């Protein structure tokens, strides 16, 4: 029904437009301009109808708070009383705060433990899982499964497995006649244990990324090297590893950003203890902002974190450009 009516309406209007008249050309011009204006309006409306909702959400929940955070970072404010403008003093306090410095050191220790091992083990396991051997699909599933577990669940499970009295690990050590360890209750071991838990949960990610990269390596390259008499170790060293370099730039950036934002796992295991030995930067930010209600200083810490994230990313991208890894 409708299409027929539309066709008829179009035909009528076309016939009308064809009518010769005194001011026919003028009319025609005006109509065309109006049509063009309507079309521009339509494309604008359609375009913004598509992107508008998402853009509004991003503006309201990312751009606006990010800018506001900057103004907050120049204030002293607890959320209730009147905010006081303090200029850059929150930022100069960043440099002098011994607790923040300690948190930075703990975060760096975690990063140094977590990032290189997640990349090295990721490559090793990806190479292993890329072999055409029996049960390989089963091994893959086993190694990937923990990736869906939350940091909270990982932390609670880790508390149990590493519990000094009841845990599986100390139980195994006892069987091997190794002295019992304090693990999360020992300030010297706690961060290492948290890194181990983190690796358990997140290694699947780097393994999958490297596995995909290995499968993208052109078979001809490997075959050419073998024809030239390279043994499997030489193939790995001189053919496979260089091919993995671009991905490694990406995994390094990604894992580093993940590492310096560590919070959930610490919150569900040690809550920063023992003796503040596992207090991280984000943990300190949370404590300053939402326990001590220092919204201004908390925002300054957050901006510091943002700056470091940017620097690390840019630095690694530039480094990869210079060394011609061409990851981006």
């Amino acid at each position, binding site marked *: 029904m409708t299409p027929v009516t539309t066709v008829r309406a179009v035909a009528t209007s076309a016939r009308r437009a064809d009518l010769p008249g005194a001011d026919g050309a003028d009319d025609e011009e005006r109509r065309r301009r109006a049509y063009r204006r309507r079309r521009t309006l339509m494309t604008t409306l359609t*375009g913004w109808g598509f992107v508008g909702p*998402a853009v509004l959400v991003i503006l309201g929940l990312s751009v606006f708070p990010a800018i506001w955070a900057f103004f907050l970072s120049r204030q002293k404010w607890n959320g209730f009383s009147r905010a006081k403008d303090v200029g850059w003093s929150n930022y100069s306090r960043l440099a002098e705060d011994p607790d923040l410095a300690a948190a930075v050191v703990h975060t760096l220790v975690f990063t140094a433990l977590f990032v290189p091992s997640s990349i090295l083990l990721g490559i090793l396991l990806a190479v292993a899982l890329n072999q055409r051997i029996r049960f390989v699909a089963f091994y893959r599933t*086993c190694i990937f499964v923990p990736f869906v577990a939350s940091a909270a669940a990982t*932390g609670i499970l880790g508390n149990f497995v590493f519990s000094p009295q009841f845990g599986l690990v100390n139980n195994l050590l006892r069987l091997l006649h190794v002295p019992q360890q304090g693990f999360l209750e020992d300030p010297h071991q706690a961060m290492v244990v948290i890194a181990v838990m983190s690796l358990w949960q997140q290694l699947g990610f780097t393994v999958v990324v490297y596995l*995909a990269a290995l499968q993208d390596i052109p078979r001809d390259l490997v075959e050419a090297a073998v024809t030239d008499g390279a043994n499997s170790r030489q193939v790995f060293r001189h053919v496979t590893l260089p091919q993995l370099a671009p991905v490694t730039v990406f995994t390094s950036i990604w894992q580093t950003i993940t590492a310096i934002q560590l919070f959930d796992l610490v919150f569900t295991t040690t809550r920063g203890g023992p003796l503040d030995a596992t207090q991280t930067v984000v943990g300190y930010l949370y404590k300053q902002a939402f326990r001590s209600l220092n919204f201004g200083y908390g925002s300054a810490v957050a901006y510091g974190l943002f700056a470091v*994230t940017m620097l690390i990313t840019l630095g690694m991208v530039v480094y990869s450009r210079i060394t011609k890894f061409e990851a981006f």
Partner: protein
Amino acid sequence: MAVLSTGGAPSPVPVPGAGARRTVRSRPRRRILPFSGWHLVLAPTALLFVLPLVQMVVASLMPDGDINRFPPRFLPSRISFDGYSGLFTGSPVLRWLLNTVIVAGVSVLSHLVLCSLAGYGFARLKFPGRTASFFVILATIMIPTQLLMIPTYVMFTRIGVINTLAAAILPWLTSAFGIFLMRQFFLSLPKDLEEAARLDGCTQLGVLLRIVLPLAKPALATLAIFTLLGSWNDLIWPLIAIQDEKTYTIQLGLANFQGTRRVQWSLLMAGNMVATMPLIIFFVAAQKQFVATMTFSGLKG
């Protein structure tokens, strides 16, 4: 696959079903083991990854007496559901689970709708302000969520959504990453079909719904899984935005639980099971898609 040749000198074995793929190794290699040496790496590693999960399942079914004794037992003396009954009677865990399902469900749905619409708009439509708004969205990808927590908390307090499920959902409505991902995918599709549909009188929305989205299933699945994992497992934001026990998500419930019931392991492990099993079952069922997602977010992110 049966490349597992026992002993002797294996001649180059053509891998069955691998088509053009040829075995690279041309020289015979002596084998000490009757199986590939890689098993020695993989079997212990796989065990290491699965054992804690096995222990979670086992401990959730153990009487606490079995766990809190010296030396502890790995296997229960009897199956006990005390952990689960304590969990379900002593805490509103089902409510927490329902809250999480709502938060994750709305997040995934909203991500799919808003990111497809915006991604398509940025990939295919021309309109004033397109480049500027896309640039703004790209610029927000680098912002860490920790920077947004304080102002968002203040803002949500003022508009009165703090301490409601809406507070947990709002930050997950859409994401710059998701918009970017969908846009890149749409750009990779050929235009011809869409143009033909437009000429046949299909509306722009109709083109997206009937022509483009059916082709975009892999990208949509990636986006859905990515959002599901993130919103289901998030802890720090619910921790800040929600104080009322009835509005907890399961992760927040668990985290707070553990502060109060430190050594009731069977109960804590039962809680872990409730929080983790839905995703594990989902993972095992849709493993291929999950792996594709992890790779995709890895290489294109």
